[in-house]
């Protein structure tokens, strides 16, 4: 049997997949959060309202969770402010340079069997694992 906590993760993941499937089938667009977020700052056209609506829904999602379960989802942020600023800059710049993040390359790109997305996912997973390993266990490991 899969422990309940992993079933919850699987179900949450399935909802994320459903979100991507709906956006693709109904609107014909990729549910890539970094692209949608950056697009909000781009030229104002017909897509701007649609992108903004997606982001509004995304931010409202945890509030809907609170309505459903009576508590906010657990969250523990341990990084210092300078680390969060540095990491945020890297995530923002890197996702734009690499044309996607965990959603666009991970959830959508892997489903489309995109070679670019497979390379991107493998790259950011390996670098992130190396980063956390060095951060938590020191370079000696």
């Amino acid at each position, binding site marked *: 049997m899969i422990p309940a906590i992993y079933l919850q993760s*699987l179900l*949450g*993941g*399935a909802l*994320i*997949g*459903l*979100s*991507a499937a*709906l*956006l*693709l089938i*109904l*609107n*014909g667009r*990729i549910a890539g*959060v*970094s692209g949608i977020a950056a697009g909000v*700052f*781009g030229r104002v056209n017909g897509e701007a309202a649609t992108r903004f609506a*997606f982001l*509004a829904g*995304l*931010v*409202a*999602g*945890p509030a*809907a*969770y609170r309505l*459903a379960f009576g508590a906010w989802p657990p969250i523990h*942020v*341990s990084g210092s*402010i300078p680390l*969060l*600023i540095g*990491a*945020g800059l*890297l*995530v923002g*710049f890197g*996702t*734009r*340079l*690499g*044309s996607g*993040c965990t*959603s666009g390359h991970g959830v*959508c*790109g*892997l489903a489309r069997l*995109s070679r*670019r997305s497979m*390379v991107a996912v493998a*790259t950011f*997973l390996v670098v*992130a694992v190396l*980063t*956390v*390993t060095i*951060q938590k266990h020191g370079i000696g490991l």
Partner: protein
Amino acid sequence: MNALLRPLVALVSGLLFGFGLALSGMLDPARVQGFLDPFGAWDPSLAFVLGGAVIISTAGYFVSGRMQSPAFDKAFDLPTRTNVDCPLVAGAAIFGLGWGLAGFCPGPALASLSLGLPQTFVFTAAMLLGMVAHDRIWRKRPRPLVGAAT
């Protein structure tokens, strides 16, 4: 009509995405870093999240492949590039570094704003700044090569 329906679809899609992130545990950078730590106390949750998401997303892609056009637009707007190039790999590596350091990727960073934690506002503001720095400065930098790829 589509001009009204498209933002509505996007709102519902975003809401499902944010709710799914909250349910999956992936709003929590500690859990994400637990997944990225296979040599420590490994937390495999994120593999289930990505697995569940890719399975349903694949079903959606399969359905879309049998449609002439999406329900509320004239045509599908999908990435067309297939070549693995330097910006793709460098960008993914830079993203991976930031993701590992803080435990936040763009979706959870934005979704967690509703919890009102100052740290997530700082991270998200820096992330948006990084995006703007790429799109407005780096991508538009002067380059000597004629016909260089963007």
